[in-house]
Structures are given as C-alpha cells and as structure tokens.
C-alpha cells in the first residue's frame, strides 16, 4: 500500500461518499485514535466495540459497509478477529471486513483468506499513519475487493518456497508476482527489475495463465488474486 499502488476503482467510490465503519478492538487507546482518524477523514464510525461478541447486535441496527477488526481480542486473545471477519462475510455479504493487526502473521492471513478473498483485507496497524492508503483500503474491501498488506505478502511468499504452485512459475515470474502482490504497477515492477513494461506485461500474462484465477474478476483484483491463489493453495496443502 505504497504511493505507487494502482489507483482504486472509481466505480464504487461514488456509492461510498461517506463510508460507514464499525471498529472492533480491545485496545481502547488505539480504537479511539483510529475512530478520530477515520472521522477526520470523513468516514462515519457507527460504533466501537471491545470484542467481537457484540458485532451481531450492532449489525442488526446499523449496517456498516466495513467492519475493522483487531486479531487478538477477548476472550482467548488468539485469533478472534480472523474468525469474526470470516463470520461477518458469511452472514452479511454486503459488508466488508478489514483485519487490522499488530503483526504480519502468515498463518492468520491464510486462515482469513481460506474460504475466499472477496470483501476481505489484512493490513498492519502501522498503516494508520497513511490516511489515504487506509481509506482506500476500506473502500476497496467495502466494495468486495481484497487488500493484503505488503508485509504480509512478503511473509507469505517467504513461507511459500517449494510449494507446488510456485514451482509452476519461473524465477523471474516469481519476482514479478512478489512485486505485483506488494501493489506495484507494471511500470513500477519494470523499474525495479530493469525490464520494459512490455516484458512485465508478458510475465504477468504468463502468471495469470498458469495460476487458477477467477477470469471474471476485474483487472485490479486479478493482481491480488494471483497472490491469493498461493495462499489458498497453501491452505489446501497444509
């Protein structure tokens, strides 16, 4: 989610001029800070919860477009946020879920995207210092898109070595995939790898062909989906 991230699709932005958000985090300090930030950025914070237990109660009256969740929350302080995000996506398909975590944990990401990636996101809490990126990620998740933090992608690709799907790709294609997953544009990837944009396009086309991707997905999501294809493959082979 750097400055070179491909621009967010304008088609859903108009619908969400004032995006409604529910915050779920057991740290009051951080939750208050985040609420102030999002309010200042023009979003509507419809509620703040200290644990995932009361999410359903809020959803019954106010239907936010996105729920932002911490991972470690009461009662067990393990992965309540991941489970709650999946549950929200199952129960309220119109609502997106963005997990904001202190750590980039590959296992949590794999669990989160195990049943699909639509309307789900996983960002590090560190991203609160970049309002634009954060707000854009919220909009994307709200509109059914997917957001994966570059840190998380790096971690996942590091853990993914020697996996069957990865073996399908050449070393160069893998490099391109890693940069693509971090949100770089074709030009950005070319600059990084000293390749012409055409060569990059060719590599990306090869990656899309080799990986089992949803051909219906819009172009910007295909890039993230390429990465997530790995994650789901990971889950299947775990």
């Amino acid at each position: 989610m750097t400055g070179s991230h491909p621009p967010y699709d304008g088609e859903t932005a108009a619908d969400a001029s004032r995006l409604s958000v529910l915050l779920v985090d057991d740290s009051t300090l951080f939750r208050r800070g985040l609420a102030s930030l999002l309010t200042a950025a023009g979003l509507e914070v419809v509620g703040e919860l200290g644990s995932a237990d009361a999410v359903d109660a809020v959803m019954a009256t106010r239907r936010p477009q996105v729920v932002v969740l911490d991972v470690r929350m009461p009662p067990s302080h393990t992965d309540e946020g991941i489970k709650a995000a999946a549950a929200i996506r199952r129960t309220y398909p119109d609502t997106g879920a963005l997990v904001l975590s202190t750590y980039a944990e590959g296992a949590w990401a794999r669990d989160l995207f195990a049943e699909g990636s639509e309307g789900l996101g996983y960002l590090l809490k560190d991203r609160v210092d970049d309002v634009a990126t954060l707000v854009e990620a919220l909009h994307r998740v709200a509109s059914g898109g997917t957001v994966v933090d570059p840190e998380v992608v790096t971690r996942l690709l590091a853990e993914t070595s020697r996996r069957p799907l990865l073996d399908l790709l050449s070393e160069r294609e893998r490099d391109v995939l890693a940069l693509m997953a971090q949100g770089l544009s074709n030009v950005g990837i070319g600059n990084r790898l000293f390749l012409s944009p055409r060569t990059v396009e060719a590599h990306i086309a090869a990656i899309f062909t080799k990986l089992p991707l949803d051909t219906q997905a819009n172009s910007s999501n295909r890039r993230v989906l390429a990465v997530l294809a790995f994650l789901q493959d990971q889950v299947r082979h775990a």
Partner: protein
Amino acid sequence: MRSGSRWVLPVTVGLVALVAKILLSAPLLTSQAALVAITWLVTLSFAAVGLSLLATDVPSANGWACLLMACSTVPGDLNSTSYLSSGWTAVGFVLEPVYLPAGVALALRYPASRLSAPNRLLVWSLAAVTSPVRLVTVLTAGPLPDGYYRPVTAAAWWSPFLHDAVFVRAGRGAAALLLVGASVALVRRAALARGVSRESVIPLTVIGAVTALAAAVDQGIWAVNAFREVPADLVRDLSAALVPVALLGDLLRRRSAVATISQRVLRAARSGDLERTQAALQLALRDPQLRVLPPECLAEDGPPPADHPALTSASSGICEYTVRGDDGRVLARLWLDPRVADDEELVTAAVEATGTGLENARLTSDLRRRNVELRESRARIVAAGVEQRRQIERDLHDGAQQGFLAVSATLGRAQLVDPQQLGPLVDEARTGLSAALGELRRLARGIHPAALSQGGLLAAVPALCAPFAGRTTLVMAPAVGACAHEPAIETTAYFVVAEALTNAARYAPDASVAVHLDIVDGVLRIEVSDDGPGGAHLAPGGGLSGLADRVAALGGELGVDSRDASGTRLRAKLPLHNRAVPSHGSEPS
C-alpha cells in the same frame, strides 16, 4: 580386639588340652590303641569346633563350652591305673565328670548361648552332684592308692557306711537321675524345635540324649555296684565322640545357610515390598508365622497384638526384632517364633539382610522421588519462563505497542488538517508517546529492575518498599550488598521481596509489613511478615509457587506461614555459593 591377641587364650587352651591328652593317655596306647585313638580324635574335634565357633559371629559361650569339653577329656586319663601311685589320680577322679554338665549344657542350648531357667537348674544340679561329691569322696576316703573303682575299705577315716552310701552311691544315683532328666529335656527340645534352628538342634540333641542316657546307665551301674558287664560306658563314649562331628557338620552347613538366607532375603527386601520380604523370611527361616510389620504399625514399645498366632502357641511369646536403616530410622519390625529365634546367627543374618535390603529400597525410592521432584520443578521453571515471555509479549502488545500505534493514528490525522491547526495534534501525540514510553519502562523494570543492576539489593529493596512507606519497616544488613557477586541469588531475592510485597498490598492492604534481610553463615535470609488477615499459601501455579521453584533450584527453601487471623510470614533462605561473602560483613565498597 579384632587382632590376633584374642586368639592367644583359646588356641593355648586347645593345644594344652590336646598335648596333655596325648601325653597322659600314651601309657594306655599299648593296651587299648583303638579306644585311645578315638578319645584323641574327640579331644581334637572339640578343640577344633570350639575354635571354629569362636571364629564366627555366634556368641562365644558355645566356643568356650567346646574347649571346656576338649579339656574335660583329659582328667579321665589321670584316673587310670597308670598313675596309681601319684596324687594326680585323685585330681583326675574329681575333674573327670566335668564333661557331663558341660556337654549337657552345650546340647541343650546350641546354637543359642543361653539356657532356659529349668535347664540351667538341671545343668547346675548335675555339676553339683558330680565333681563336688567326688571331691568329698576323695577327702573322706583318704588317699586312693588303687583307683576309684576300689570298694570302700575301712581305711576311710570317716564312717565307711556314710562314705559309701551317701557320697558314692547317692551321688552317683542323683547324677544318673539328673542325666535321665537331661536326656528327656534333650528329646523334648528336639521335638519342639521349629524353623531353621531344627537342623542345628535335632542332630545334637539326639546324640546328646543317647550320650546322657548311656552316662546315666553307667552312673546307675556304679551306684548299685552291679551289672558291670553292661557296656554303657562304651555307648556313652562312642556317642559322645559323635557330638563334635555333629557340631562340625552343622558349622559347615551354617556357612552356606547364612549366605543363602542373606541372599534370598536381601533380594526380596530390595524390592521394598514388605509382603514379599515376609514371604522370603518365612521361607528362609522356616517360620510360617513370621510377620514383617511396617514401621508405623506399632509404637516403639507397643505390645504385640493378642491375636498373633505365636502368642497362642505353646511358647512364651514372640520375639520382636526392629529393623533399622543406617540413620537409625525404623524400617520394619519382625515377629519371630522364639524357638526359631534360638538360632541367633541365622536370625541376625536374616534381620541384617532385611535391613540392608529395605534401606536399599528406601534410598532407591527416595532417589527416584527426588528425581521426579527435580524433573517436575525443572519443567515448572521452564514453563514459568515460557509463560513469562508470553506475558511480556502480551504486555508489550497490549500496552506500549497500542500506545505507539495510537500516536501513529494521531499523526495520520495530522495529514488531514491545516498546518496552522497542528498544535493540539502534536500535543496529543506527545502525551501518547510519553505514556507509551512510561509503559515500556514499567515493563522493563518488571523484567529486570535497573536499580538492582546498579545498586544491588541495598538500593533495589528500599525502592521496592518505597510505595508502602509509612506501613513498612525495612531492616537490611549491610552484608546483603555482597549478594551482587551472585546475580541469580540477588535477582531471586529481589523478586521474592517484590512478590511478598505485592501479595501484602493485595490481600492485607491495611496491615503493617516488616521486611528483613540478612546473611547468616553464608545464607541469605529473607523474611516478609504482615499482621493482616493471613490465609496465604503456596498454591500450585501461583506466583509464590513459581518463586519457590526458583529458590529451590538455587539450593534454598521458601516457606509461607499463614494461619488465619495471625498474619502472613514468608521466609526464604538462599545459600550463597561464594564463600568469600562475610557472614556479618561491613558496608560494601
């Protein structure tokens, strides 16, 4: 006493008896070679058996009895026609029957060393009517120039009738009757013998009974002065010759018996199983009613229960042996039939093997138990370490990290406002940062207090007590500063005080607390006591229990004394390994 000097007397006695025997009976060799050879053999055997018995652990009484038997074969030779002209005949005549009471006593008690009261009376009576009566006979009859078998003549200076009737006939008659009694007692002993001592008792008592009966007949013949043709003396001498043979055989048998019993009992007792030990002892000592009781079964001097089978049997009770370990602790009690306990040597061997085996089992199980404790406490220490790290991560995650992230969010908000309006946001960020830093500092202090690193316990403990000032008295010996040489001790001591104070603050918020630290004899002693409601204890998994493990790992001990309503007193002792630490040192430099 274990040196050779204790052998000088018995060996001398044996040799003197043997040499005297050979020299004195030499004149008879031509006429009765076979008989003389047998008597030499008897003397030699008794001397050898006597010395062998003295070499064993059996009480020495029986060894000396055998040497006495060897000696008592000698006077008979003096009382022969070869020495008619000398006064030695009279000495021989008087001392000759010593072997009778000595032999009867030996046969009635072997292998034990004590006689029962009736048997003792019998033996002393026999002794009284033999040699003393013969002494009187000699004295009243004057010199006996032609041997003891000469009919009493008018040469007696006392009434010849009384001399003959009282001292010769009545004395011998009494001896004959007592010998009959002795043979009855020996047969009875053979019949009553039980357990492992049967094998020692039966051969000797049977031979002894035959010898005593033959001797009785012989004495009777002389008393009535008739039936001289009955060869009672030959039977007596031949069966008496078998006594040392029986003893020698028994002696050899006992060597292997002791080894077998010890081995068998030891093997069973090493299992630590008292029932198995009992079975092995019953088999080894052949006493089916033998009982092995656990040490806690009876008080030290408690009476045996009335229903023990040994009590209802013919004997006078049971013999109790206390089996003790090396440290004097009672490991078990043995109840034996006293008739089995007669065989002191074998029973002692069995009891000692039981003690060795049970001690061995106790040490082994102690070792195993300690091993388990050690393993468990080590596991607890490791688990506590892991839990501590988990807690630190959690504290970092929930505390400082969220604080810093909140500051991050505040700075994020700064991107959205006019540069002129940044003031309040910067203030907010600064407040958030200092709070998060404070949180970090608090956490770091919990991991390892900086005060401890810099000023040791002398600085860190007062700092610990500071929040409780007004209700806490701290007494700390300056020598405590020397703990700085042993960081593990120092840190553990610090956390013991910290945990105790935390507990006091939590459970006895109004109580006054006394903290005391000193070093005595190289041991750091910590005591934290309060006059609160009490009721604290070392709950498994609690903070104190974890500290107790750490203290134990350092070779110390931690205890909590906290009866309800009498306050809580926590005491810890931590031995300092660095012995250079003064026990009452001065202010550390």
